[in-house]
Every structure is written in structure tokens, then in C-alpha cells.
């Protein structure tokens, strides 16, 4: 029996409608203790959770997430094994997978969408699938009730931005800077700029990811955005051996900063 977790957009809207800001942590699927880390993140106040499905060539990811990917792939974890793990997980916040197009393509787009749904996974983020190539996947995802989250970047033109926001489901993933995922000392100016540009053209939740590493940066960007995605900072804690407790602590810290406004 699949655990009922609802849609990502509904969960984020509930938070926004209550006057709050959204927090979506990213956790590398298949990493040692990752199921407990997902539980800890949900318990600490995550509104939705992104589960990374490791790919051999993650061009949108920096060294930390690459390293976690490599460690997981070396243990023989597969996309299917991650979906199987998550299906029965006693976590009631919605989840999305974040992976690369070839994983879904090799699985079979339709079969991948159906498998996500069957595992109670509400959404998918494929960072190397721009709007222009989204057609076949989005059709399969829509048919299975899977929300396809699209990315908007600082370089996205005014002409493209409304079309991306229109086609995105769950939320709009606003890329905070020019670059790949990773820890940054300061929030880039581009983070609030892209958030504001998205907010101008859509009513969907707008979350900023890439380059949001700390509670302070999360609160800062959420002055403009509806919330944020935090990935590398969390995976860094897993790589450092902090386990689910360290993930829970960081999520709680960011949650508190967002709630304090």
C-alpha cells in the first residue's frame, strides 16, 4: 500500500497560505541512512523532500553532490531500488525525485512516470531537460499524475520565463546563480532577482535553489521567494558522517530562520 502524501503544489500552497515560507531539502537517494534522513527532515519541518537519484554524469552538480553520487553508485543502488525503498516509507510530506534525463529515458519515460506514481512520489526534476525538450516526458508525467518541476535561470529571457512557469508543476525552481550546485559564502544577488522575475509572471510557488546553503541565506532569499531548496549543505553533513541527526538539525535550523522571517 502506497503511503498517501499528496501533491507538492498543495503542500507548498498550504504553507504559503498560512503565511509561511517553504523549505525543500535535497537528500541523495541510496546514501547510507538516507531513509532516516528523510524522516528526520520531514520531522524537522520540510514541506516537501527532493530525493536525488544518482547519475554517473551530473553536469548541474558540484563536487559535494557528485561525491555522494559516486559513493552510492559504487554500492550498486539502482533507480528502482530507491523507488522501492521510498514506496513504504512512513513519511507524509510529498516527495520529488531529482535526477537526469537519461535515467528516465533508459527506464522508459512512461514506465518511469508510472513507477514514480506507484511509489508515492509526486514530482520529478530533471535539470538537463529544458522546456524545449520537456514534451515527451511531461506528457508521460501528466498522464501518471506526476508533477514536472522546471527550472528558471538567471539567464532565462523574458520571453521564455512565462512559458517555463506556465509548464512547471509543483513549483517553479528558480536557479539562484550562474553555476552548479555547491556551498557559497554569500547569497548571490541573482537569487532574489530571478525569484522576483518569476513571481511577476506566475502564481505558482517560486522556490530558489542552487547557492542557498545556510539558514541566513534561506531567510534572505525567502524575503522575495516563497521558499528555497537546500541540497549541498545537507549532503555535506551526510558525507561528513553526521547521519540523520545532522540532517534533522540543519533542517530545523533553517525552518526556524524561515519562521522567524
Amino acid at each position, binding site marked *: 500500500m502506497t503511503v498517501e502524501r499528496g501533491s507538492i503544489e498543495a503542500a507548498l500552497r498550504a504553507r504559503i497560505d498560512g503565511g509561511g515560507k517553504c523549505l525543500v531539502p535535497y537528500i541523495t537517494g541510496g546514501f547510507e541512512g538516507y531513509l532516516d534522513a528523510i524522516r528526520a527532515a520531514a520531522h524537522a519541518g520540510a514541506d516537501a523532500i527532493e530525493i536525488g537519484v544518482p547519475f554517473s554524469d551530473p553536469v548541474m552538480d558540484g563536487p559535494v553532490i557528485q561525491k555522494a553520487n*559516486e559513493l552510492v553508485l559504487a554500492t550498486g543502488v539502482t533507480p528502482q531500488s530507491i523507488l522501492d525503498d521510498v514506496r513504504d516509507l512512513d513519511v507524509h510530506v510529498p516527495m520529488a525525485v531529482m535526477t537526469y534525463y537519461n535515467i528516465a*529515458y*533508459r527506464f522508459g519515460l512512461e514506465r518511469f512516470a508510472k513507477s514514480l506514481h506507484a511509489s508515492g512520489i509526486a514530482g520529478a526534476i530533471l535539470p538537463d531537460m529544458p522546456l524545449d525538450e520537456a514534451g515527451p516526458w511531461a506528457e508521460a508525467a501528466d498522464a501518471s499524475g506526476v508533477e514536472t518541476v522546471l527550472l528558471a535561470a538567471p539567464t532565462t529571457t523574458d520571453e521564455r520565463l512565462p512559458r517555463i512557469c506556465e509548464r512547471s508543476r509543483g513549483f517553479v525552481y528558480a536557479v539562484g546563480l550562474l553555476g552548479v550546485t555547491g556551498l557559497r559564502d554569500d547569497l548571490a544577488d541573482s537569487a532574489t532577482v530571478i525569484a522576483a522575475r518569476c513571481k511577476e509572471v506566475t502564481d505558482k510557488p517560486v522556490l530558489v535553489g542552487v547557492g542557498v546553503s545556510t539558514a541566513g541565506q534561506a531567510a534572505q532569499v525567502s524575503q522575495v521567494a516563497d521558499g528555497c531548496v537546500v541540497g549541498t549543505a545537507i549532503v555535506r553533513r551526510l558525507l561528513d558522517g553526521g547521519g540523520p541527526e545532522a540532517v534533522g538539525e540543519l533542517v530545523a535550523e533553517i525552518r526556524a530562520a524561515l519562521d522567524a522571517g
Partner: protein
Amino acid sequence: MAMTDPTPEGRFGRFGGRFVPETLIPACEELDKSFRHYWADADFRKELHDLLTDYAGRPSPLTECRRLSEELGYRVLLKREDLNHTGSHKINNVLGQTLLAQRMGKKRLVAETGAGQHGVATATAAALFGMECVVYMGEVDVERQALNVFRMRLLGAEVRTAYSGSRTLKDAVNEAMRDWVATVEDSHYCLGSVMGPHPYPWMVREFHRVIGNEARAQCRALLGADPDVVTACVGGGSNAVGIFSGFADTDAELVGVEPAGGAAVDRGIPGVLHGSESYLMQDEFGQVLEAESISAGLDYPGIGPEHAHLADIGRARYEKVTDDEVIAAFQLLSRTEGIIPALEPAHALAWMSRARDELAGKTVLLNLSGRGDKDAVQMMEILG
């Protein structure tokens, strides 16, 4: 007809496309637009033609191989891309892209390299145009191509080692794309093969079309006809596409030769890597496999999307050869013609050597895409 322009979305049949992060899409669109504009611009074409002539040394000769022909039992012609400045065909594409990048106001070139030939060519063009240049190279290749690393540094480029994954060409591309994602506003990604997101596979083919155009005219002057077979090695496939493009509308048979350890077409599984949909070496879960061969320049698990299309429609066929066959071919050309080939085109010669019965009585044109200086140390260790 084969080898026409791709669709506006960059599709060659069902292959190609533009699978890159949104951050890079506007840059790809701008590049597409600029390339279309300048490729139709007489001043741009003249400037590129002059560079290819006065700087790179084109046209490259067509050499008839008397002793090799005797040895193999059929007539062999070589298109001598090994005689270009920097020692391979790579300079054609690099001069085209660098001139284009300059027109687009870019100040910095980013490139990946396997054997180092594309890296050296890019570093050369950057020096010529006074541009900043960063070349990514896998750790394994940095070790086996130390001479080219030195050449790139001498030319003023920064060589950055890629330590991830298989630490070869595939990973150098990953790092170059990550760099480009962060620097797209002032940097041009000078991609070295007919791969990547649209418009690269098409644009790089057009910059290498000069190989096929020259060879076709040279063959007609020499033979009064087209050759029966045109062959070239294939990693991503830029030199092959360059020479094939001159003969796509003739009766010549087109044969691409891949290393056995990096034969993407042979396995016939479509996938998406580095921006385009094509044949790709991968496991059952979609994880990309590591290509392994004696030649750093062909150690790539994919193949350009147009090659996948040519294979699909039957206009070209793709063979594979082993490292041992390549080593024998490397020596064969050296001894019979006094030409030391790069290990990459030695793959095509290895197939020619194996297929001598099939090729008896025919005229075969081989694109000798590069010279073997860079491989001398490696081969000295192997041959003793």
C-alpha cells in the same frame, strides 16, 4: 538526402536536440543565431578561409599510397589532415568557433580535450586571438598525453585536471559544461566534436566540411571519379563527419571505425548525454559506461547524433577494431609510407587492413586526421 541541415530543434532524424540546463539555453540560442548569421556572411567566410589558408596551411594534400596499396591489395588515398597546423583536423573547427566567439564579444574560451589535440588547437587559437583559455582534461589523459599538456601551457592556456568519474574525455566534458554554466556570460564553450547541444553537432560539421569538399575535388582531379569507400575513425566523430559530408551525395560507401572499447553504435542503445540524444554506452539503468581504448581521443562512450542518424538510415556503417589491430596499423603506415599516424586514424587503417578481401579492387580514401608525434612516448613503451 543524407547530411542536410538538422531541424530548427537540432534533430538529425530522431537524434540530437538540446538537453542542457536552462542556464545554457539562451547561450545555445544565441550561438545558433550568430552561427547562422555569420556562416552566411561573406566577410566572415573570407576571414575564416584566409586563416585556414595562411595560418593552418590548407588545403591539406591528398596522398596516394603506393607501397601501402601494394601491401593491402587495393588503392589507398590519404586525406592529410595530419599536416595541418597543430597536427590534426581539430584546427578547422577551432578557428571557426574562435572567430565566431570573437564576433560574439566573448573574451574566454573553455574546452575539453581527450588526447589533447583539441585542447592544443583551442589554446593555439586563443593565443592567436588574444583570448583567455581554460582546457579541461581527465587525469588519466593528463598522464598519458603529457606532451600536449606542456604544449597547451606553453601556448598560454590553463589546463585543469578532471578527477571525477572515469577521468577521461567524458569527465572533461562534464567539467567544461560545469564551467560554462558558471561563466556563460563572457565565455564561449569551444566544443571539440560533433556532439553536445544544438547547434554544436551541426556547426562543428560545417566547420569541418572543408575536409570533404577539398577531398572530393582532389579525388575527382586524380581519379576522375569518387572513391569507392571513404573511411575515418569515430570518437565523437568530427573528422568522420567532415570527410563524409563531401561524399554523402555520391555512391561512395561511408565507413566509421570505433574502438572496440568505445563502440557506441555497435551496442545500439539510445541515450542522452552532454546535450544530445544519440547512441550511448550505458548499463541497464542508464548509467554511462566508461570507454576504454588505447587512444585517448576516441575514449568517449557516445557518438555524435548525426552519426547515429547515418547508421539508422543505412547511409554509413560503423565498424570496431581492437587495440592490437590499431598497434599493427600504426606500424604499418609508418613503415610503408613514412607517415606516423595518430592512434585515432590508425583505427580506420586497422579496419582497412582487416577488410582487405572485401576492399580488393576498390579505391579507399582514409581521412588521416592527425599525426602520431603525441603518441610516440606511449607507443615506445608498448613496442619497446
